[in-house]
């Protein structure tokens, strides 16, 4: 630690733009803070051996002291985190009782009504568990999240799951979300319009052609499924294509700009390839494809700590991140449950944050 006196000298030097002190002066100030050159492992092996022979007991004691301190601070830290976890577990239960959606969209809307702003594009990171019915649980979580999202008035939800298992069962997932929505909203006509798609998969909105003009709910929800292959692999694919084009002379490497990459990468998540509906693909494909804002405003991580785990990197530049498990309980299980109050806390947090571009 630098002593106050030296700090003052140093600050004076800065104020005069580095002119007051000469290089030798600075080295003199610095020298007490530099580690002993004899401690360096590589540079002076002979000297080090001599030193360690000189004070074997002292260095041994020092090591033991360090190990003891290490154990001590970890034990202390463990106790403190446990206390905090227990405290938050209790608080979370209370929150879960106070704020419960009761499968009523009006209640959810009331919970978010006071918020200053809402994300236009909400993104969540979910993880597949290890139990047998993991996929069923995951799909139910997605359906719940979809219902909460649309009830709180957010038009776009993207769900990231690393393995991409959700993408392989889009029709089933669509059905599950539908039935969840019907338990929230009632009949088909009162439900919001739902479209579900994944990059490189055709858009799936089987129901919309059947839902006729008597739709009473004008809200729409677009659910976008992402997986780890939409991250780095997408960039690899893009680079491959660009390299091929460049090799055949269709493009100069100098033509590759940030804007081009941005446009290409964004296209994958915003433009569903074709509309696939069960009966009549031509009908309604024009007004249904709403453009999705590619950059999520809020990223909710349902996990014990904040780790992106392969989430597509390009669009999270200005995304607010919120980790529900950062302060809550992990006593019951190692996996974070997707709960309504966690979702709500994320939205509150987002509303409280201030938005500034460029740090």
């Amino acid at each position, binding site marked *: 630690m630098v002593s106050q006196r030296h700090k003052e000298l140093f600050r004076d030097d800065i104020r005069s733009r580095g002119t007051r002190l000469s290089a030798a002066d600075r080295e003199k100030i*610095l020298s007490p803070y530099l580690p002993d050159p004899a401690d360096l492992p590589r540079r002076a092996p002979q000297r080090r051996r001599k030193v360690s022979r000189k004070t074997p007991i002292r260095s041994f004691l020092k090591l033991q*002291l360090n190990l003891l301190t290490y154990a001590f*601070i970890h034990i202390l830290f463990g106790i403190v985190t446990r206390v905090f976890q227990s405290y938050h577990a209790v608080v979370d239960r209370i929150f879960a009782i106070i704020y419960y959606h009761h499968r009523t969209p009006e209640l959810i809307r009331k919970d978010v009504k006071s918020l200053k702003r809402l994300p236009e594009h909400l993104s969540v990171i979910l993880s597949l568990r290890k139990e047998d019915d993991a996929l069923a649980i995951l799909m139910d979580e997605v359906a719940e999240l979809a219902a909460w999202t649309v009830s709180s008035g957010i038009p776009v939800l993207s769900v990231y799951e690393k393995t991409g298992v959700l993408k392989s069962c889009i029709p089933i997932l669509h059905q599950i979300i539908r039935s969840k929505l019907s338990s929230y909203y009632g009949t088909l006509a009162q439900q919001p319009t739902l479209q579900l798609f994944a990059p490189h998969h055709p858009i799936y909105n089987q129901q919309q052609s059947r839902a006729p003009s008597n739709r009473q709910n004008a809200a729409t929800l677009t659910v976008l499924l992402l997986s780890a292959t939409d991250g780095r692999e997408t960039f690899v694919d893009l680079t491959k294509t*660009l390299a*091929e084009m*460049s090799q055949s002379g269709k493009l100069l*490497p100098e033509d590759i700009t*940030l804007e081009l990459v941005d446009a290409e990468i964004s296209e994958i998540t915003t433009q569903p390839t074709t509309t696939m509906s069960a009966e009549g693909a031509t009908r309604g494909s024009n007004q249904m494809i709403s453009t999705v804002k590619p950059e999520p405003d809020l990223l909710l991580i349902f996990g014990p700590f904040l780790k992106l785990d*392969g989430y597509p*990197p390009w669009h999270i530049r200005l995304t607010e991140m919120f980790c529900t498990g950062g302060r809550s309980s992990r006593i019951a299980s190692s996996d974070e449950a997707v709960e309504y109050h966690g979702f709500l806390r994320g939205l509150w947090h987002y509303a409280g944050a201030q938005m500034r571009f460029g740090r």
Partner: protein
Amino acid sequence: MSTSISRFRKWLLASPPIEFALSQLRDLLVGALRQGPMPQHIAFVMDGNRRFARSHGIETVEGHNLGFEALARILEVCYKSGVKVVTIYAFSIENFKRSKFEVDALMEMARVKLSQMAQHGEILDRYGARVRVLGRLDLLRPDVLAAVNRAVDMTSNNGDCVLNICFPYTSRDEITSAIRDTVTEYTTPLPSTRASSTSPRTPFSETHIAQNIRAQAQGTKVEDLPSDTETASASSGEGGGPKPDHPNRVYENGSSFSSSSTLHLAGQQQQQPQDKTPTSSEPGAVPNKDSPVFMSPETITRQTLDEHLLTHDNPPLDLLVRTSGVERLSDFLLWQCHENTEIVFLDILWPDFDLWHFLPVLIGWQRRISKSKKNPDAEGNFDGIEASDSAEEVTPTSNDKVKDL
């Protein structure tokens, strides 16, 4: 009243015995941290200098200076506790949009610091410290750029502790450059000699066989060609393969029979002007026969892109810390941190940041790593493990205690 208390506190903390005790405590804590696994690569977003200045009623520039002091404190902690690489976000490309006064002041600060550092080359060498500046150096003022280059060059041979300064940097720009560099690399034709001397696929030439057949049909013997090597290389050149066919190549091959080194050199010299042909956007001008050999784009992997990033020779990022409670990445190391990095947002302004705030983060990281080592299915990565192996052997009991909690 509160000011006098804070003044008393300051006086107390600055008094020699307290100062000594605090520095001993710091040393002890850092030494203790060393005993566990340590992240190999930490990134910091030094946010909050301006807000600190505003809330303390000092000038913005002064806030940045205090931020620099905080950086020095944290770097000391990091390197002493065994972190190899520290990456800091010093200046974003977006920051050029700030007031000219502030940008100039920041640039001036960087210039002074870097040139001061260059005066202490010997000390930097002694400790193996290495400074690198990542980002769009072409956007810098010439005098700042000169200071940057001097500092980077002087320390380029060290490598024990690396400090990456992201100077005018955004991650999107970095990713784009990585893609562009990869494409440029794959658009550069392979050295032609490598193709001809190591092509086992076309040891025979169609024209030669045709000649033979014709000769057999005519009942006469084919005249012998001067040497085997020349036949092979000359024929593979004209064998319809996708290699560049230079008029002087046959001569080169003939004159320097099998000395591959000269062939290689000749090939590389020829390759220089060749670079431009495929990118000249007039493919019609290049005859089909001359189409150069490229690396297949299918061989591009994530690894390829990784190697073209600015951080390609650093260990993977283990921990990213952002201060001042802003919870987004602001275009910093997106590619590096989106997989196994733990991201921590701290609600404290950067000039206040010190070991005391950093310690819980590090201990939490160590706990998670020890846990994930115990249970490999759990989250976490296994990079900073080497150090912990020895520590665990020495004190199995203490670590077990830690895990039990």
